[in-house]
């Protein structure tokens, strides 16, 4: 979830009022935002203080900036919808003085670009920081670490238009990137430049790399890696900028450009459209003027909204609530058609509009209601059976334990001396300590023994929990089962003790069981040969118990004899 830092003075000036934390905190909830931190030392002026805010809605990148967040709060409290008249749309293309030409050569690697220019006032330090943050949040969170969206800012006054966007040979093309003074080839940048190394995963397998140049051939940037040290070095004091976003999906790139354009407009900049010409068909045609409004209206039924929200809502209330979340609305009978705000594209289904209605009305205006449907509650059969089992084991003097399910191959396989193919392995473990999914609770119990030699004896411990193992008969090739394992460790622990306890347990569980010797060659390697037994219920093996082999005890660092048992409760219950 994105976290942003907003400049206190900048934020409140965008909001149109100052707020104390007690007011800001509840106000933020309408944007699914939380106040994370707001240190307010007297010694630091408001223009330098920072408010940290966490945003929960991953489908609302427009909220991940001071301007976007302030705009949402303004609208919620009754502010007017801002008129972003610089948007072009179907049948209403705004004139543009500048042009970007897309070349066919970039189509395979990173085909789409959206861009516009801004002018009107010199940028200051706080605003530059804000822009860098917007760029990072859009590219990192919404653009999946720049893979699907990246953004660049340039000094547009220096650019010789038109700009072209094309694919080039990364071995031969060279320019001076930001934070460098020498010319480097694109491959060199990927290998040596810090940003190159960070984002090389996006391009390393591509033969042709994207490049943005002006008509003189001066490089603007190497998307999505790094700007040039010339046209791409935006500084405090610049008042004319070119902003572009590139990526792999045109609607996302277009929306991201719209979000940035609206933010600039809110800061008082004039937005100057840029025409982008494609040599291939795009969802928005071959020539697109950005910022471009592409969103489609969606219709919501006031009746359905009333049913879902549990409150009778008139069509007018539905419409006015939607306006509070930025939509433009038209009423048709009991339906409201909503055009999403220019900076939003998160309406997939009318339920998304219904949530906006809820937010527009305010969640505090929906009193909770006791449910009326009668249903019978019950625990699952295996939970009931497990509880019965645990009760008997407690009576037999056993302490219940509970363990994590992920562990190491060393514990689950090596120390147990079992066949590794039974145990499920994680393909992408975070560390070898959490690489395997357990196929038995016994390693957990033995882990306790290995660290508890100072605990008063006897040690009698058990766990009831899930295990999983390979099972070719299942669709997943895997079975999950509820297992019981018990372990008794003390100077006199032996086969007879565990045998009596198992017999007692099974007696009270009401199972008719048979004790069988393992067939020759089918002994359980965890136990001493000749001192462990299989338990059969209705002819089916449901468990094993006996004296643990000294080899195992040594591997776990257990210095006393131990007897143990392991049972499949799912099978036993049947």
């Amino acid at each position, binding site marked *: 979830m994105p976290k942003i830092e907003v400049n206190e003075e900048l934020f409140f000036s965008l909001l149109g009022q100052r707020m104390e934390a007690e007011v800001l905190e509840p106000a933020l*909830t*309408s944007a*699914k935002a939380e106040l994370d931190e707001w240190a307010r030392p007297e010694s630091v002026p408001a223009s330098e203080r920072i408010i940290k805010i966490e945003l*929960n*809605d*991953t489908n*609302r990148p427009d909220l991940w900036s001071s301007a976007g967040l302030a705009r949402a709060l303004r609208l919620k409290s009754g502010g007017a919808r801002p008129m972003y008249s610089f948007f072009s749309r179907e049948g209403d293309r705004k004139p543009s003085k500048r042009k970007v030409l897309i070349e066919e050569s970039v189509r395979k690697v990173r085909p789409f670009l959206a861009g516009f220019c801004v002018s009107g006032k010199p940028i200051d330090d706080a605003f530059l920081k804000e822009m860098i943050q917007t760029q990072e949040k859009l590219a990192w*969170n919404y653009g*999946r670490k720049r893979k699907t969206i990246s953004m660049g800012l340039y000094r547009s006054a220096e650019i010789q238009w038109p700009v072209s966007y094309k694919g080039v040979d990364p071995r031969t093309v060279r320019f001076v990137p930001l934070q460098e003074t020498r010319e480097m080839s694109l491959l060199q940048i990927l290998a040596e430049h810090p940003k190159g190394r960070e984002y090389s995963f996006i391009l390393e397998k591509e033969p042709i790399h994207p490049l943005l140049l002006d008509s003189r051939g001066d490089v603007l940037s190497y998307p999505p890696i790094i700007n040039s040290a010339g046209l791409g070095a935006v500084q405090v004091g610049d008042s004319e900028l070119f902003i572009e976003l590139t990526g792999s999906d045109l609607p996302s790139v277009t929306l991201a450009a719209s979000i940035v354009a609206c933010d600039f407009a809110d800061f008082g900049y004039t937005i100057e459209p840029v025409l982008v010409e494609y040599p291939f068909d795009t969802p928005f045609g071959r020539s697109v003027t950005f910022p471009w409004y592409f969103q*489609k209206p969606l219709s919501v039924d006031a009746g359905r909204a009333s049913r*879902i929200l*549990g409150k009778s809502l008139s069509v007018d209330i539905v419409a006015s609530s939607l306006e509070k979340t930025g939509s433009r609305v038209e009423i048709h009978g009991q339906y409201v058609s909503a055009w999403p705000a220019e900076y939003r594209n998160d309406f*997939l*289904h009318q*339920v*998304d509009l219904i949530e906006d209605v809820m*937010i527009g009305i305010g*969640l505090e205006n*929906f*009193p*909770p209601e006791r*449910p*009326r*449907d*009668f*249903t019978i*509650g*019950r*625990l*699952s059969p295996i*939970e009931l059976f497990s509880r019965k089992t*645990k009760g008997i084991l*407690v009576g037999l*003097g056993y*302490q*219940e*334990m*509970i*363990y994590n*399910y*992920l562990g190491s191959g060393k514990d689950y396989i090596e120390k147990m001396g079992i066949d590794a193919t039974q145990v499920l392995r*994680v*393909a*992408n473990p*975070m560390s070898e300590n*959490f690489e395997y*999914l357990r196929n038995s609770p016994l390693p957990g119990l033995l882990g306790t*023994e290995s660290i*508890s030699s*100072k*605990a*008063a004896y006897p040690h009698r411990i058990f766990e009831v929990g*899930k295990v999983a193992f*390979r099972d070719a008969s299942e*669709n*997943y*090739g*895997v*079975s*999950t089962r509820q297992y019981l394992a018990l372990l008794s460790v003390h100077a006199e622990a032996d086969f007879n003790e565990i045998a009596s306890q198992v017999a007692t347990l099974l007696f009270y569980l009401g199972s008719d069981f048979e004790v069988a010797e393992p067939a020759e060659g089918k002994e359980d390697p965890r136990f001493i040969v000749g001192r462990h037994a299989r338990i059969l219920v209705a002819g089916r093996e449901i468990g094993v118990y006996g004296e643990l082999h000294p080899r195992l005890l040594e591997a776990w660092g257990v210095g006393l004899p131990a007897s143990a048992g392991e049972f499949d409760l799912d099978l036993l219950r049947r």
Partner: protein
Amino acid sequence: MEAAILAKSLHQLEVKVLRAYGPDEDLDAMRLVRELNYKEGQANQAFSWLLAKGLASETGRIPRTVYEITPLGREYAARGTPEERILRHLSENGAARLPEIVAALGLEQKDVGSAFGLLSKEGALVMDSEKRASIVAGWFEAAHGSGEKPRVALVRDLLQRAASRVDGLLEEADLVASEKAVLAGIARKRGAGDSPFRLAERERVIYRLDQNAAEVAKALDALGLTGEELGAVTPEMLARRYWEGATFRPYNVKSPTARLIPGRRNPYVEFLESVKDKLVSLGFEEFDGGLVETEFWNSDALFMPQFHSARDIHDVYHLAEPGFAKSIEEPHLSRVAAAHENGGETGSRGWNYSFDRDFTRRLILRSQGTVLSARQLPTAKVPGKYFGIARCFRYDRVDATHLSDFYQTEGIVLGEDVNLRTLLGFLEMFAVEVAGAKEVKYVPGYFPFTEPSVEVHIKHPVLGWFELGGSGIFRPEVTESLGVHVPVLAWGIGIDRMALMALGLNDLRELFSPDLENVRYRRAKM
């Protein structure tokens, strides 16, 4: 300790000593043996307890010499010494050669030889020309008539006296000169295995009662305790009714108790079960499922697009082998795929991308409990309420607030008329009934599979405000694709913070502590 309390905590062995003696008397074990009829062990025990309670002190130690009967000596006491047996044999059977005596008595030749040597030196036996031994005529009479017992009789006395005592000891101080002389010949300090007595140096420890003992004795008197009270209730006491008219020795009911190691439930598991019981009491039915899931049920069925950032390789654990399920159930697969691609028949626009039918079969470790809700939908009853506490797995670095596997508590409510306000009603019930909250607030939330979505925050009596859980109404893309045509409330509550508080812990890893002693002592406030 106050004298009266102390008096009640005394054992009868102590009581009798305190009542029998004053502070100026020298006491030792033998005196208690003689005067209070104690066994020596009881006497020593009484002193040791009185010392520990500060009622007596050791005032001196006097070395003493004792003769302890050996196992051989006990055998002699029972069967007679070789000399006695030879004398008896000869007096009953007349003269005999030494080998004949050896054979008749089953003695060893050297024992018979040395016994003969001693007895003939004392003039009791004589050997004739045919090497037959016989008793010197008139020896018995002479020996007994002299007024001094013969050595053989003295040995017999000593053996019998020693054997009759539990400790088998003869005090040198209690012996007369002739006895000492005899013992000098038959007792050894070392290698006493062949001798009837072992010579040992011991110490006699002298004790005196302290001044406060008198006060305790007075308290005993006031309580009427004589030391003759009955001790433990025994089967014999019950059978013979000794208890009738007798009093029982009072015990100190405040004395520290011995540690027991009981069989016991794990408090964290009990906490989880208590939450289950609460939910059952609210009409929820428990569901369960496998630890290994497909991308399909874990995320696709929940309308999380396959390119969603939470589905990255760095968020979910993939299974190495087997890597994929054989198939995904129809019609669920086709309907879910359509919902993702263009909304299908769910009334949605869809995510507008090409759904990957191989990726959807990939096996992963269940990353969210909501899987169980999705799996329940195709067979769920309407109205219906379900819940599960499911072990889930996350690609997180393990620390005090993150675990690689942990429990999530999730559920659903299906009904023709359920809506946002009923959802809030449930959240309120969870907050009050499960979490014990006094104040509840709701704020809009975001979850990929619900719309609208609501977070519930509660003010806990101890923890203060925190987020109890997330919830919402399942998106139609989720429910319609799985054949459910009524609204479904979905909720999840975080109970780990409450578990930590109930168990007095502050580190999530401690919930799954393998430390036995730690778990044994753990108590839960529930």
